[in-house]
């Protein structure tokens, strides 16, 4: 293990859900590294396994249906796999904390906003209730909410305000890693921008690294340093912002870009990716994307693609580059 300054290191993670109707392979072999202070964007369609991966970092996968088959997670050099529940309780909120998608339901309706923030502080920092409350007031003001609203209840706040409270809770103990699971999806655009701006400021202020889960490439550009594209439970392409946006390698990533309307070129026809996500109950043997891929080859159907590295930050899992590394994608034309 090199002396890495990675805050998070996930190796070969496999998670599946055992339900009455069969087994769902949500995550099959994911590798993620996040350097301290950096932000990694995790992009993918819904059902690609993004949230499952995030929850596994906090060991919050509900165990009756969910099952972590193999793989290990190193969070700030702590082996999550071996950490028992009480150790995890110390980590959650202190070392890592998470923001959930829908602010409307993310707050406990019957407890005041102030208490919900103070609770985290009280657990992790040996402070009296009074001090915790003061700190909570500070946090509220830091996320742009007037401190005197401390004792109000969640239903008295708008969607955007609630998300700010959630952020205040997450950052109340200045965690080393913040996981944000589609934090702005439920918000309308103007509020979205404000929240993203707030997150960027706080990131700089707390020197905190972040895992931003989203399916919106616009958000990725705004906030992330590196990007990982996830499809059917695997990371199929990862690289810096430059690598992914400038030299897209994987056909699926190219498809994602093609489905974004281009402000400049109004007339350009959108070219959505045809077909649907493959059925998680029985994933294809070969590359999961193969029957939707315009560059489909025989090998894709039978063999799972290996990782092809273009630089130490940029890799892709696709048979196109097995022999000829500088193959150029051209919008689906072979």
């Amino acid at each position, binding site marked *: 293990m090199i002396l890495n300054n990675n805050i998070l290191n996930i190796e070969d993670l496999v998670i599946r859900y055992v339900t009455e109707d069969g087994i769902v392979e949500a995550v099959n072999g994911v590798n993620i590294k996040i350097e301290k202070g950096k932000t990694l964007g995790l992009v993918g369609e819904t059902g690609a396994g993004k949230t499952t991966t995030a929850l596994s970092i906090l060991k919050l996968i509900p165990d009756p249906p969910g099952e972590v088959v193999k793989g290990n997670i190193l969070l700030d050099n702590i082996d999550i796999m071996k950490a028992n529940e009480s150790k995890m309780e110390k980590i959650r909120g202190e070392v890592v904390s998470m923001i959930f998608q829908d602010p409307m339901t993310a707050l406990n309706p019957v407890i005041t906003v102030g208490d*919900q923030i103070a609770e985290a502080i009280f657990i992790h920092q040996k402070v009296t209730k009074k001090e915790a409350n003061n700190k909570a007031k500070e946090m509220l003001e830091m996320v742009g909410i007037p401190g005197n609203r401390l004792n109000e209840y969640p239903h008295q706040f708008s969607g955007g305000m609630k998300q700010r409270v959630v952020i205040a809770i997450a950052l109340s103990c200045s965690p080393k890693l913040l996981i944000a699971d589609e934090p702005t999806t439920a918000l309308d655009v103007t509020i979205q921008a404000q929240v993203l701006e707030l997150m960027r400021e706080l990131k700089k202020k707390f020197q905190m690294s972040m895992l931003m889960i989203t399916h919106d490439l616009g958000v990725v550009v705004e906030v992330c340093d590196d990007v990982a594209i996830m499809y059917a439970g695997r990371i199929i392409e990862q690289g810096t912002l430059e690598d992914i946006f400038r030299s897209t390698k994987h056909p699926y990533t190219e498809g994602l870009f093609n489905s974004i309307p281009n402000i400049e070129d109004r007339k350009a026809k959108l070219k959505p990716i045809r077909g649907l996500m493959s059925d998680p109950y029985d994933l294809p043997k070969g590359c999961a994307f193969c029957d939707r891929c315009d560059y489909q080859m025989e090998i894709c159907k039978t063999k799972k693609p290996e990782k092809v590295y273009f630089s130490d930050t940029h890799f892709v899992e696709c048979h196109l580059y097995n022999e000829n590394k500088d193959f150029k994608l051209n919008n689906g034309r072979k």
Partner: protein
Amino acid sequence: MLIPVMLGVTFLVYFIISLTPGDAAAMILGNGATEESIKELREEMGFNDPTIVQYANYMKDLLTGDMGTSYSTGKSVAGEIGQRFPNTFKLTFSAIFIAILISIPIGVISATKQYSIFDNAGMIFALIGISMPSFWTGLMLIIAFSLNLGWFPSSGMDGIRSLILPAFTLAIASTASITRTTRSSMLEVVRQDYINTAKAKGVSKKDVIRKHALRNALIPAVTVIGLEFGILLGGAVLTETVFSWPGIGRLMVESIQRKDTPMVLGCVIVFAVAFSVVNLIVDILYAYIDPRIKANYN
């Protein structure tokens, strides 16, 4: 909101009771009364007026706390009920107390340890509990604990020991249904997002349940407890008959056998008032637990 419902209840019950056959005046005078004295009394008591007028007079008296006099004992109905109601009150409240004490923990635990042995046993107990008629359960408890083990007296009311069996008999059915509600509402709450937020904060498993989940799960449970109290009052009539508990439940059944209509009327009204008052308290409790409701009150 309570007043119009109470008015409605008294009218409905008075109307039903007025259908009872039999001549009230003859009942009061007892036997050996001459025809004229019966006619005279009918006039005086206004039995010949239409039911509506009689109802109005009854309500006038009711407001001053006078529920008329009992046909059989000649004593004031309000006095008799006043003497007996505390016993029913003691019985029903200890029953609901036992029910809550047992059902909330079982409901919570069987929800958190879903599909475990405990959960299955809890649910079976709840299902069987609901299907057991209170009077039969009472007899079984008497056989087991009073006749054979001799731990508790099998009837009458003197001291705490004689309260235990009737209160448990009455409590079993309510315990069952409150357990089921608590469990399903807990299952509902545990899946909510704010539970994940709490966990992500590093809140311990125990505190997540106790501080976050329970308070939210209690909201539907409180409404059920309100409704359950109504069923309890009904059950009290039967349990009091089995245990010869001198409450207004038994008084009501005896009064029916005595054709003592004012007493029956008084008992039903007191039952209805008690039920409505409890529901009012539940609504207030409801607002106290759930701030969203409190918000639109003030």
